[in-house]
């Protein structure tokens, strides 16, 4: 009996054909100067024009029905697309979150009208979503959300503030975790609901937060008497906590949890062909062993998810290991580059490395901190 449930699955040959198409597209776009590769591209590099190109090729909305503008493909095909965009460091940040989690959420809980209206726009690369979980007083302690939705004749009236909402400034909607009724004594998991908010509504104010590198991809979002219709409640009233934790399993195990900095290694490999010393060989071997192992774990979870199994603990393990690997990769590549005099680093190498270092702190924070992940694992081990 093994404690952890990660099936080993060989990819179907058809998936590898899809991979080849993606690789060709990314190469052409990059060579045409349509993007400059960056680490953490799914979070910090947004380019609506690039998203629309991917939409045209059918690489957004793979998993949902063509009735809603999707492409009737599997979650595993989507996995290949995400993997190849991360390898390329392509600017996919605009559509990533909507494609990953909000479209499936709408499919599960949205009205027919919402699905027909919004899903085709997401698949076209035209419509973007932001996550509305964190608040000033609710970070790791997510159940502490205070932003309220009150029942009113027109629907729900929302007051409060969300924070760290990546891409909210270019997004059309936010799905927010809101308090719709008070906590039941110490049980704060009741009375929370997920509500979709049109960010163009009156009463919504979005203020950018500038990160330490000078980028402003995340935001504070204020709600002042914002009224949304009844059908914007997604799922069960009061069932928000369960829905959110279920989604997190999906969100925590994807390739973006361990490949965000792969572009840094990839760039260095092209630079260092034939120039690596024995120490660098050791570093490379270790990095590749870790990447290959994480890929197996993440792919194993993707296969379970595609069968309707949602392994929360395994996902937490992948996120903890993967986030540490992402940061280790950046540091290890710095060491690899010791084999090359600094003046021989290409401008791309220098730029990507610098961005990689600057963007490393949030890896182990977003989507649940390392400490929260270890808490989940400890609970599964029976320690708490």
């Amino acid at each position, binding site marked *: *009996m*093994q*404690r*952890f*449930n*990660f*099936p*080993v699955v*060989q*990819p179907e040959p058809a998936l*590898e054909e899809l*991979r080849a198409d993606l690789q060709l597209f990314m190469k052409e776009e990059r060579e045409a100067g349509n993007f400059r590769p960056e680490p953490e591209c799914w979070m910090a590099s947004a380019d609506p024009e690039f998203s629309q190109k991917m939409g045209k090729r059918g690489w957004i909305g793979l998993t949902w029905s063509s009735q809603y503008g999707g492409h009737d493909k599997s979650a595993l095909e989507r996995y290949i697309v995400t*993997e190849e965009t991360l*390898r390329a460091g392509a600017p996919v940040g605009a559509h990533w979150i909507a494609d990953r989690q909000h479209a499936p959420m709408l499919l599960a809980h949205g009205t027919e009208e919402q699905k027909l209206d919004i899903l085709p726009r997401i698949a076209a690369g035209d419509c973007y979503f932001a996550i509305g979980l964190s608040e000033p007083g609710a970070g790791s302690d997510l159940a502490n959300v205070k932003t309220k939705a009150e029942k009113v004749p027109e629907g729900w009236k929302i007051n409060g503030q969300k924070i760290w909402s990546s891409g909210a400034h270019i997004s059309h909607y936010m799905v927010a975790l809101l308090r719709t009724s008070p906590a039941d004594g110490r049980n704060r998991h009741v009375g929370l609901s997920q509500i979709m908010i049109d960010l163009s509504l009156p009463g919504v104010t979005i203020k950018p937060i500038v990160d330490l590198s000078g980028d402003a991809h995340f935001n504070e979002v204020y709600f002042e008497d914002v009224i949304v219709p009844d059908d914007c409640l997604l799922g069960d009233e009061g069932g928000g906590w369960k829905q959110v934790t279920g989604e997190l399993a999906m969100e925590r195990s994807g390739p973006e949890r361990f490949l965000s900095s792969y572009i840094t290694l*990839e760039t260095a*490999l*092209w630079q*260092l*062909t*034939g120039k*690596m010393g*024995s120490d*660098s*060989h*050791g*570093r*490379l*071997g*270790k990095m*590749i*062993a*870790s*990447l*290959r*192992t*994480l*890929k*197996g*774990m993440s792919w*194993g979870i993707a296969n379970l998810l595609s069968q309707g199994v949602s392994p929360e603990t*395994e996902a937490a*393990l992948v996120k*903890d*290991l993967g986030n540490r690997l992402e940061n280790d990769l950046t540091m290890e590549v710095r060491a690899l580059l010791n084999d090359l005099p600094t003046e021989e680093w290409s401008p791309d190498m220098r730029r990507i490395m610098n961005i990689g270092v600057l963007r490393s702190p949030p890896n182990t924070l977003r989507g649940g901190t390392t*400490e929260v*992940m*270890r*808490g989940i*694992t*400890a609970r599964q*081990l*029976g*320690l*708490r």
Partner: protein
Amino acid sequence: MINTEAMVAETATKIYTDLCDREVPHKAEAGEYPQALWDALAENGLPLAWVRESNGGFGADYDEVFGAIWASAQAASPVPFAETLIANWMLDQAGLAPADGSASFALSGHTPSADIPFGMHADKIVLFDEAHQEISLFDNRAATRSPEEALSPDGMTQFIFSGHVAEQSAKTNLSRRAIEALILTVRAVQMAAAMEMALNISIEYVSQREQFGRPLSKFQAIQHQLAVAASECAAATMAATQAASSITRNAGDPEKAWHEAAIAKVQISHGIETVTVPFHQVHGAMGYTQEYDLHHYTRRLWAWRDALGNEHHWSKLLGAELALTSPDQIWKGVTTGEWIAS
């Protein structure tokens, strides 16, 4: 996951459950060799699982046997079951009859002697002589065996091949890399299994042991140490399973499984320190005693990570090989597990 449902795996699991409880490894170290355990494995033909049927074995798929090895490692097997499986596989690949009794193995390029795991207990030694592309069977019982200061309770001896006449010998097409692929995969499965068992023992201990008026398991500092160790264990199981899957897919040409086997070696061996440090730490001094079970696993882990070269050696070997290919091929390998030799 390692396949634990095949018949070979189920039979071995039952034998280890019946004949190798927690006391057996203790007794074995005190000099009471568990002959009954070996006899049961042998009577069921399990050490011949990878030998072709035409040569007197089961002709089992690679995949069907790894679950048996998993069970043996979780029981801290004091008999050379995995070693005999490997030795018999080497003999069979060279067209030689399987060993009569238990066996261990050595890979020798040029040196006249080699370190033999389980050298004090194995009846026979199988040697792969790379320079002559030859596989030979030696009688270990007739040899003068000098026990080495070994990390593992399984022991290690020096065997001086020169001056001994092989009982059987045959030329082979088998490459060193093919043999390495199998040995590294077997060791990876053993390491992952032992890591998981040591994790289980640690969880059991911190749940019972109380300090400051509560179980150790309630301290966040303890929880996080074991959570980190658990993620390393999960990664080890995955690395071992991918290696097992690779050699099963490439049964016709095990050399093609070399990369995934080397990756498992590197991944797991690098993780040994990450797990054995917290396992011993949460046990306090108790885990350092001979009386307690933890060392049956941690000492074997420390020995297996060194077997056939340690994690640093293999990281360099793997990295050097990859550096000769291209970034495109490296990416293909990472994403699909299909590697091309440079």
